[in-house]
């Protein structure tokens, strides 16, 4: 079960603060429960799947599109300035309250939905549950934060390690090249020395051969 608690200020009385709690199963489109409280009293109601379909049909809006709009306005997944809420109390007793929500377009706004909420018998219990839910969310987020922070630290150290290894690898590659060339030069120069000495021997051998022949000539 999913829950979302938000702070709203009704357009008809922006100075007052209400807290809106939406509870739903996986898909908002199969219906959702609404709780509204001003910190003292609380009202509750439910929007059923059929009412959602009827509302979408009345607005000649595709059902999926309409549910998307509901998610934006009620779960605050859209731009908050594009949506308004309004609350009007039925009788003075405050037993019943009408809650409506609308979308602002440029110069016009159209109602996305409205519903009558009934006062709950024990508002204190409802408020306690709402605050407990908030504290539970805070704990969950703090734990998630801590996990992410630790994961970050681990990744940072991985990045450090890899940068170190990469540096070492680059150095090792340069060193390998230098070392191989050094060895190759030594071995090659041995051959060159050998060639020089053989050429010298050959030269002398030729002189030795040509020498007597020259004399005889």
């Amino acid at each position, binding site marked *: 079960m999913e829950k979302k608690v938000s702070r709203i200020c009704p357009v008809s009385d922006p100075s007052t603060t209400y807290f809106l709690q939406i509870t739903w199963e996986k898909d908002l489109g199969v219906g959702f429960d609404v709780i509204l409280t001003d910190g003292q009293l609380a009202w509750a109601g439910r929007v059923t799947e059929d009412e959602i379909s009827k509302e979408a049909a009345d607005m000649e809006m595709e059902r999926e599109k309409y549910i998307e709009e509901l998610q934006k306005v009620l779960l605050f997944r859209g731009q908050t300035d594009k949506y308004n809420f309004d609350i009007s109390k039925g009788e003075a007793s405050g037993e019943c309250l009408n809650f409506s929500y609308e979308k602002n377009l440029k110069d016009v706004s159209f109602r996305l939905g409205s519903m009558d909420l009934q006062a709950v018998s024990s508002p204190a219990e409802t408020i306690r549950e709402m605050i407990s839910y908030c504290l539970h969310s805070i704990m969950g987020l703090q734990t998630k934060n801590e996990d992410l922070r630790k994961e970050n630290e681990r990744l940072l150290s991985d990045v450090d390690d890899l940068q170190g290894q990469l540096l070492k690898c680059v150095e090792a590659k340069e060193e390998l090249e230098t070392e*191989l060339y050094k060895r190759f030069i030594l071995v090659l120069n041995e051959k060159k020395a050998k060639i020089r000495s053989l050429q010298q021997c050959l030269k002398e051998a030729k002189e030795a051969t040509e020498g007597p022949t020259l004399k005889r000539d």
Partner: protein
Amino acid sequence: SSETKEHFACKYDRYGDSYTADTDMAQLKGLFSRMSNLR
């Protein structure tokens, strides 16, 4: 013996590489690895 030394000195350079026999990857790697760290 000095003869043996003489014999090998004719055929191999001071690093043990033959003057005349062609070398290959394995031999050259072995040769280089036996050449102590030249630093």
